């Protein structure tokens, strides 16, 4: 089976000056759960953002579902984004709107511009939104304004919004970086279930190596814009972690026991 996503020699240089990615190649199979780890500024977010064209790669090809994303025109970009959910560290919700309205925003990519602008959703879409909210344990919060929620609840709204898109791929940019350990587990468990039961491919950026190892099948380690590790999560050794973070024994929080 062809991979759902493939990076071929992708490079990204911001503003003709900052080198963020250098000759990055990897592929992701449908249904995989992959984590990208690496130090701050190594290019993790850039990788995710190239996939849905929030950032334009400078060189190389990114093949998603058989289409070259880098050559996509406006219409094709929209098709790609429709099929790709994204979850953010800071949730990026419209705080002043209710939970269910934010969830329904996941449909905007599927709608005609004017019905979308008017905020008109079909009964079926609304029903679907409430089902998703129930699955994520947010039924009671459905009509609350998002600024009344806790961080963990906000992130679940973010997940619900991306599920509303009926995506084939979900990109998670440090989804648990602002959450306490309990909420983090809830979020990771939900995403893990979504990955297994709904067969949605998930690509994560994570700062917590232990979380990445525990939840993902595969880990991509990246340093200064280059891939330095790409393999099964359970084969990642301590030495390799130190290579990814360019550190010595005893310098990482994971070394503290």
């Amino acid at each position, binding site marked *: 089976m062809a991979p759902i996503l493939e990076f071929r020699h992708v490079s990204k240089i911001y503003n003709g000056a900052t080198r963020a990615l250098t000759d990055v190649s990897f592929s992701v199979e449908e249904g995989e759960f992959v984590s990208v780890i690496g130090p701050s500024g190594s290019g993790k977010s850039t990788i995710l953002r190239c996939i*849905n064209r*929030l950032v334009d790669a400078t060189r190389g090809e990114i093949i998603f579902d058989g289409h070259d994303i880098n050559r996509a025109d406006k219409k094709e970009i*929209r*098709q*790609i*984004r*429709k099929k*790709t*959910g*994204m979850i*953010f560290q*800071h949730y*990026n*919700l*419209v*705080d*002043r*709107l209710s939970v269910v*309205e934010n969830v329904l*925003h*996941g449909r*905007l*990519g*599927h*709608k005609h*511009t*004017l019905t*979308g*602008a*008017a*905020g008109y959703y079909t009964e079926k879409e609304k029903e679907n939104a409430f089902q998703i909210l129930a699955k994520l344990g947010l039924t009671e919060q459905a009509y609350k304004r998002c600024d009344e929620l806790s961080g963990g609840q906000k992130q679940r709204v*973010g997940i619900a*919004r*991306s599920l509303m*898109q009926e995506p084939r791929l979900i990109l998670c940019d440090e989804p648990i970086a602002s959450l306490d350990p309990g909420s983090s587990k809830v979020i990771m468990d939900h995403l893990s279930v979504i990955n297994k039961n709904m067969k949605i491919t998930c690509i994560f950026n994570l700062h917590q190596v232990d979380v990445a190892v525990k939840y993902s099948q595969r880990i991509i380690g990246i340093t200064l814009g280059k891939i330095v590790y790409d393999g099964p999560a359970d084969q990642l050794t301590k030495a390799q972690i130190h290579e990814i973070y360019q550190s010595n024994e005893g310098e990482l929080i994971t070394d503290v026991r």
Partner: protein
Amino acid sequence: MSDNQTSVFVKRKRSFTLVFLGACGLFLVSAAVTGYDVIAGFESVPKAAGWMAKNFIPNAQAWSRLPNILAKLTETALVSVAVTVCAAGCAFFFSLLGTKTTKVNPWIGRTVRIIAAFFRNVPDIVWAILLLFSFGQNILTGFFALFFATFGMLTRTFIETIDEVSASCIEALRATGATFLPTVFQGILPSSLPEIVSWVLYMIETNIRSATLIGVLTATGIGAMFDLYYKRMDYSSASLVVISIVVLVVAIEMISNQIRKVIM
């Protein structure tokens, strides 16, 4: 406390003293240059106050003009509201071309900012004087003078507000594949509405004040009425005009504070 920290405080005290002495010096120099007699200036205050008390307290004749004054005042206030709302609508859509997050391309963004800065930095009075040539002493002159100044001011503040408040949800909606209009109406407007309304209310207050002054120039509205009484040396009627403007502005300020509290 280390030497380093102490020296920061010493430095701050020293620069404060310097600024104070500088201000005193400037005052003395300018008083000397213009021949302003400080003591005579202060001595004339009680005399001026007495004259004002005698002439500016509205008398019976002034009160009989109140209905006329209120009618003109309402007209001016309504024009100011209309101008502000029109300018706000235009400024909102114009500002979308100038924000970091929604601009079409960097050049258009820069152009928008320059145009906004131009409209904002020409004072409304100057706009009124310029427009007097094209429209004459007409209500349109005042309308456009206020419109241009408000448009420039609001475009700039809307750009800042959107970049600050809405950037994150714009990114999220864009990532779902939403096009421009849904992003505007489902993301930007709901998230920045309180700030936008707050600025519009502020501009309404400012514009009622400016409209009075511009009215003197263009012979329209409450400003013209003030000018008329003033030139006839009917000071007590003129002062009733001023008092009613102040009351209106304060009332509007109070109302808008209430509105702000509700929508925040």
